[in-house]
């Protein structure tokens, strides 16, 4: 019997492992990633604590005074110091509507990606693990779905929902329906990524070892293969959040998304669009800037993650 040589170190905790990881190391060195994460976290915190920090409640009709409509931001002439970023055409405080709107946008973004993830992981795993006919059928469905643009699917489904529920009813379930539409429209992206990494993992010997043990397919798929495909899923999910936010904004801008009573960033941009000609550019531009910054930082984070988790650059 050989006594093993490694010294008797203490087993590191999860936190210590994270601190020693390449992920953390590269984060410490990447200024762009740090700033992006900072802005992203700040935006998310601000958006979800909107009811606490927003000066007014844009959903509360009692707090809105139509006389305050189209006031410019504070640094311009004719502004009201009560409204930091000015007001929109209905006299709502723009800062408050943006905070509430960002919350809706983020909610839809996260929700849609969760749904995409659920469908994508399930179908991707099944297609990659079983191969053959299941793979062919699922991937052809994905191909067909990808050959329609997301917006086209969303417009059709959105229009059908609107027609059946009516505008009022639609307003109440709009968030859920948008999550559903964007989630269903974009699952093939994740399914393809999952399938590709399942194919790579499936050929590794630890999967053979599990099969030799007699483990069932479900156990092998979910307990053994899935945890090893999480890195690429994580990367693509990040990018998909940005995409979902954009999709939602586009739909809202087209009038198929969130109603004006419950504005998202997209519907804010739309509602201000009519007033650009009359000189009230801030109603469109400020929420537009917030949207751009939000999507940009999410994409930058996604890029950074992709670089870090690229298995060709770093094996972990």
């Amino acid at each position: 019997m050989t006594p093993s040589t490694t010294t008797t170190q203490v087993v590191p905790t999860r936190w210590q492992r994270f601190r020693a990881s390449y992920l953390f190391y590269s984060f410490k060195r990447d200024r762009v990633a740090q700033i992006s994460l900072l802005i992203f976290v700040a935006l998310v915190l601000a958006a979800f604590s909107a009811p606490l920090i927003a000066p007014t409640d844009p959903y509360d009709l009692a707090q809105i005074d139509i006389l305050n409509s189209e006031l410019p931001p504070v640094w311009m002439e004719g502004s009201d110091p009560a409204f930091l970023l000015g007001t929109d055409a209905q006299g709502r405080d723009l800062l408050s509507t943006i905070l509430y709107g960002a919350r809706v946008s983020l909610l839809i973004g996260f929700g849609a990606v969760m749904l995409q993830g659920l469908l994508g992981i399930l179908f991707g795993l099944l297609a990659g693990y079983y191969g053959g006919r299941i793979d062919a059928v699922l991937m052809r469905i994905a191909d067909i779905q990808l050959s329609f643009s997301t917006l086209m699917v969303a417009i059709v489904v959105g229009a059908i929902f609107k027609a059946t529920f009516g505008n009022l009813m639609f307003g109440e379930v709009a968030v859920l329906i948008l999550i559903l539409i964007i989630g269903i429209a974009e699952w093939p992206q994740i399914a393809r990524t999952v399938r590709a990494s399942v194919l790579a993992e499936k050929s590794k010997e630890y999967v053979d070892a599990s099969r030799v043990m007699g483990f069932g397919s479900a156990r092998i798929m979910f307990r053994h293969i899935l945890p090893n495909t999480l890195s690429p899923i994580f990367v693509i999910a990040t990018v998909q959040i940005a995409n979902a936010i954009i999709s939602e904004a586009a739909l809202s801008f087209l009038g198929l998304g969130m109603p004006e009573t419950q504005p998202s960033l997209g519907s804010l941009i739309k509602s201000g669009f009519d007033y650009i000609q009359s000189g009230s550019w801030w109603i469109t531009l400020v929420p537009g800037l917030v949207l751009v910054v939000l999507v940009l930082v999410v994409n930058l984070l996604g890029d950074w993650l992709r670089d870090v988790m690229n298995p060709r650059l770093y094996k972990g």
Partner: protein
Amino acid sequence: MPDVTTHKTTNAEASMQPSTETQTLVRIQDLEKRFDLSGSWLEQLQFKEGKLQRHQEFVHAINGVTLEVQKGEALCVVGESGCGKSTVARTVMGLISPSGGEIHYDGQRIDHLPAKAMLPYRRRMQMIFQNPYASLNPRMTIQQTLEEPLRFHQPGLNPSEVGDKVHEVMHAVGINPDWGKRYAHEFSGGQRQRISIARALAVDPEFIVADEPISALDVSIQAQVLNLMMDAQEARGLTYLFITHDLSVVEHFGTRVAVMYLGTVCELATTRELFANPRHPYTQALLSAIPRLEDDRPTHIRLQGEVPTPVNLPSGCVFHGRCPYADQRCRTEKPQLIPTAGGQVACHAVQEGRL
């Protein structure tokens, strides 16, 4: 096909007689495996001479292999890459289903069993893999890796019994049981291979298929792992089917050796007999190519050309294209395994006394 049962004595006469002491644990009968190269049904359609035809291409990985593994022995299968040795191992373990032939374990045919009926055999037969960097799940700790098979096969065990068992196998393979909370990447290649062996031993198997278990390891570590496998064989009465390309390991480790070439067994003999008196021209070439620590120049038998692809198998003896003794009969007629002193060989030249 003459059914010759060999056993551990080197006495030529005695080995011709089926022995009563040895007991066949695994029997591989006329095993065949083809892999379809031609893709999906649509991709198989081809235009030939103005007609639409379905065209299929196969890799003939195994072409009629018959082997018996005796209880307690280490049967080594050697050959160069593409000879089908790994496919034999994976087919025996049920990772690949055979295209033809049968596999019997302890008298029971197992190659067509559904997963449920296969479960009891899963415990009795285990596998050790080549690549220690891929054979452990990177997202599981060693403890989890070793506990899972135990919990799965023996649901009756309580947590402390599972813990004791894991402790025992880790100790048996020389891995400090205190390191259970670590992940695979924190171990060296040799240690990972020990853990792989521990996983196989955890369910108390009686038969282990080892597919090139030491080829990815350094020289000094190879010796450790080989010793460990021999220790385990002695302590637990294991039977091995050992797949390797390294003949010097075979000479040391094997009870009997099967030499494979292009999916067929060309010679099967006890280790001592095979190394002392190789009969098949391929075996002779293979043995002469081992780089040994002698001072002299390599005096190996040079073969013509290289191994043909297993897509279009040569007619007759698969080795005839490279064989210095091949004649017309070798090019047309497929040689069968015939009994020799201490083993079997598939060669017309040997049968005719030309060699």
